Each structure stands twice: as structure tokens, then as C-alpha cells.
């Protein structure tokens, strides 16, 4: 097996639910006593290797978003360790993180710097991004003048063209009109076949089966099953069926 590109070692994350604003203010100075908590991730461990496509399935509130946020470096674990070896591109919130007053071109650079890229390299991929986003002359206008579709296209184009080592995709992603959607799907497939590690989040069993040979099933912050997609989906669907029976 090749080297692990993402490693989760006993990762736990608890959100503290403050009773009210007073409690929140107090928490600035003192540790809250017996606060209500929500355990979003509970002792999660797994390795994902270079070139793997891994699906993550689970109901709402299972900890999928928290997990992805940690991989993209937005959220931090309380305990445990996460190692990510490479550039992560996230197709999650495409319009987030733009500086509205800066032009599309300047935002490409901003995003590039955040990812730790050099000027020279960004220059190389700049035209590719602009072409892909189909923005034309708008690329030198401030992003606040863009339509929401244009913003998404730019966000998508930046993320897929930086040649990421890890691509995080949320199935619920929408990127404008049908023809652009198809273009995006094709691009994602290209990236996968090029050997990029992909994390795919979905409720839809079929699309996970199509893309990912391996899947992880999360329930209430705990890894219930980690293995071949068919097995994982069976566990997931059995659990769902058992819930229905109880009702």
C-alpha cells in the first residue's frame, strides 16, 4: 500500500452548547462546569491512502461535516491527531472565502497563497481557471459584481485546477446550469481517474457505489463500519431498516 495521505488518530471533537449568552461570556474566563455538550466525533481513527476514493455516508448530524471541516483545516479536534499530506481542494462551500472587493483574478491569487502556492505556479494555472469558469472579461471585476452562479463557477474552477492531492466533494453541490454541471462532473471524473485522492460525501447509495470502492459509515460521531462500499452500505441500510421496523 502507498503512503497514507490523510491520517486520523483517535480524533474526538465536542461542541459545548452554552445555555445562554451569560454562560458564554463566563466561559471566556472560567471553564464551564458540567456544560451540555454534543459529541460530534468520538475516537475516530482511519487512514486514507494516496489515490483512494473513499465515500463517507451517514445521516444528518453523524459528524460528516465536522470530519470534512477538519480535513480542510477549518475546524480543530479536541483530542487526537490529524495529518494531511498535501493540498486539499474542497468542493463544499464554493462561494465562501472570496474577498468581495477584490477582482476574480486577485481572488485566484488569494486562494493560491492560502494553499501555499507560489506566484509562478499560480500564473501557470491562472488562464486555465479563467477558461474553465467561463468568466471572460468579468475576471477583472470585483467579485461582489458577480452573480451567484459566476461565483460558484470561479470557486469550482479554482479548486479543481490547483491540482489538489485531496479532493473533497459534497454530493449536494450545485454549480449553475445543466451544461456547466455536466462539465463539473466530467472534471471530477477526470481528477479521480488521474489518481487524486477523493473523499465523497453523500446520502445517495448509488452514487457512492459508482465512485468509491471503499466507504466509511459514521453514526453519531463514531465509525460504525469502514470497508468495501458494498459491505458498508449494507450495514448502513440494515440499520435504517431496523429503525423503520421499530417505528
Amino acid at each position, binding site marked *: 500500500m502507498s503512503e497514507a495521505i490523510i491520517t486520523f488518530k483517535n480524533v474526538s471533537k465536542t461542541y459545548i452548547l452554552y445555555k445562554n449568552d451569560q454562560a458564554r461570556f463566563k466561559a471566556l474566563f472560567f471553564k464551564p462546569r458540567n456544560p451540555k455538550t454534543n459529541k460530534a466525533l468520538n475516537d475516530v481513527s482511519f487512514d486514507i491512502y494516496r489515490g483512494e476514493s473513499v465515500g463517507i455516508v451517514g445521516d444528518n448530524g453523524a459528524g460528516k461535516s465536522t470530519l470534512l*471541516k477538519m480535513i480542510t483545516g*477549518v475546524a480543530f479536534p*479536541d*483530542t487526537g491527531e*490529524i495529518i494531511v*499530506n498535501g493540498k486539499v481542494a474542497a468542493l463544499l462551500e464554493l462561494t465562501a*472565502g472570496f474577498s468581495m472587493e477584490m477582482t476574480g483574478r486577485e481572488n485566484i491569487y488569494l486562494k493560491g*497563497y492560502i494553499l501555499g502556492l*507560489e506566484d509562478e*505556479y499560480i500564473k501557470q494555472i491562472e488562464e486555465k481557471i479563467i477558461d474553465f469558469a467561463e468568466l471572460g472579461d468579468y475576471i477583472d471585476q470585483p467579485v461582489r459584481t458577480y452573480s451567484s452562479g459566476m461565483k460558484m463557477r470561479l470557486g469550482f474552477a479554482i479548486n479543481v485546477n490547483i491540482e489538489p492531492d485531496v479532493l473533497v466533494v459534497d454530493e449536494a453541490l450545485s454549480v449553475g446550469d445543466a451544461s456547466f454541471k455536466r462539465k463539473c462532473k466530467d472534471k471530477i471524473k477526470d481528477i479521480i481517474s488521474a489518481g487524486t485522492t477523493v473523499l465523497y460525501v453523500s446520502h445517495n447509495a448509488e452514487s457512492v457505489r459508482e465512485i468509491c470502492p471503499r466507504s466509511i459509515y459514521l453514526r453519531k460521531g463514531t465509525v460504525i463500519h469502514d470497508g468495501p462500499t458494498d459491505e458498508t452500505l449494507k450495514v448502513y441500510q440494515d440499520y435504517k431498516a431496523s429503525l423503520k421496523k421499530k417505528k
Partner: protein
Amino acid sequence: MRSVGCLFSRPITVLLQGGCFLITDIFKEHKGFGKQIFLLAKNELIKTYKGAVIGPGWAVVKPAFTVFVYWFAFSVGIKTMKMMKVNLGSHDPFSVDFFTFMFIGIIPWFFIQDSIVQGAKTLRNNRQFITKVKFPVSTILTYTGISRLYVHIMLVVIMYIYVFFAVGPSWYNLQFFFYCPLMFVFFLALSWSTAPMSAFSKDFESLIVSVMSGIFWLSGIMYDSYSFDQPLKFIMLLNPINFFANGYRNCFLYHRPFFLYKTEFCIFMAEFAVVFALGIFNYNRLRKKLPDVL
């Protein structure tokens, strides 16, 4: 595809642990982001002043009106405040007209006020950079600070034109390049504490906003903070805003070196060390919780 690897300047291994941030993390976040900070600072200015006819002119109009109001109230309204006698420790008090005295002291105040109030609000106002994407969060405080510094330098230029004719130039004017960066760093370090705390609790933010107008009158902007008897004279030295108001007067009015009043200088430096250490401590303590609470 991997051939581009050599172009990366920084190691791209990201290691997230449950433990504490290292002390150097604020500096690390700034590394390699310098150019971007100045670009973002410029855009911050555009954001503040776009859509107005005179645009950045407002950065001058508001302080100018404030200066006029204080001058009117004290020199025209309360007729006694025409001349100031400043006790600089020598036999004869330093004599200067009230307007010049107040004008030179209030210019750093405008920067200080903005830095404290806006600095505390910055992270909450830029939450999209914290909760949605991975971003070097402490640089947000730096680039918003730099955008305020641009405005400050514009005001200082205007003030210097006045000083040039009313007081006259002096080599001591160059001490501005000591006081101004020091002021910038001091209030930046203060915002490392206040900004994450305000992001955490809106009450903390409101607290800061509410005490600001009081702090103005407790600082020696409109009056001479050296003019009190002990122990009040000593207590006034504890206020770092006095250090800068008097510091700008050292440069442009009193024409004396920054280290002449040793007690004042030493007290400030001690406070600076405390604020700096607290800033790093609070930022590191709260940084990882920010995405959860914003």
C-alpha cells in the same frame, strides 16, 4: 502532475493536534502572506469608503469635524482654555496654545480609538474567513490594522503641514517613526486578545465599545496628563494612550527625546510586554474554538 512540487515554498503537511498552539504560530501565519496582507488592506479601505462621493475624503472629514468641535467647545465656549501650560519638569512650564496642543494629541487618539473598537470587531465581521475556509486568521487583524494605518498616515501628513508652519520643523519630528510603528504593534497585540474574545461573546464587544468614550476623557488628549500631583500623576502614566499622545507631542511640540522621561518609558515598555504576552496567550487559547462559535 507531481512536477510542480518544487514550486511550493512551504511544507504542505498540515498537522492538527488537540494541544496548544505554539508561541510562534501568529508569526508563522504571516510568513509568505506579506503581499496578500497589503492587497487585503487596500481592499479593506475600498470596502470602507466605496459608494461615497468624496470616498476616502470621509476619513478626513470626520476627524476634522471632531477637532473643530473640541476646539470650539474649549477655546470659544469655555473661554479659559486658550493657552496650555505644560509641566515638563523644568522650572518654566512649556506654554502653547490649546488648539496646537489638542490637535497633535488627538491624531494618535483617532487611530487608537479605531484600533480598539474596530480591532475587537474584526474577527466577527470577517467570519467567512474563519468558518468556511482555512485562513491564517491572525493576518485578518494585521491587514485591517494596516488599512487603519493608511488613514492615520494621511492624517499625520495633514497635521504635519500645520505643525510645519505653527511650530516649525525639528529633528525630533523623526521620532514619529519610532512612535507610530510602536503604536501599531501595541494595538495589534491588544487585538489578539480582544478580537477572539469579542468573537466569543458579544457582551465583551459591547463592553469595549461602551468604555471607549470614557477612556477618551481619562486620557491626556484634551488636558496635560503630567499636570497632576502624586499619586495621580503616577496613575496617569499607567495609561498607554497617554504614552502615545505625549509621545506625538514629544515629536512635534515639546521636541524632546522619547527616553527622557524614563519612568514613563519603562512603565509603557512593561505594559507592552504584558499586552504582547497576553495577546499570544489569548489568541492561542481561543483560536481553535473560533470556528465553532462564530
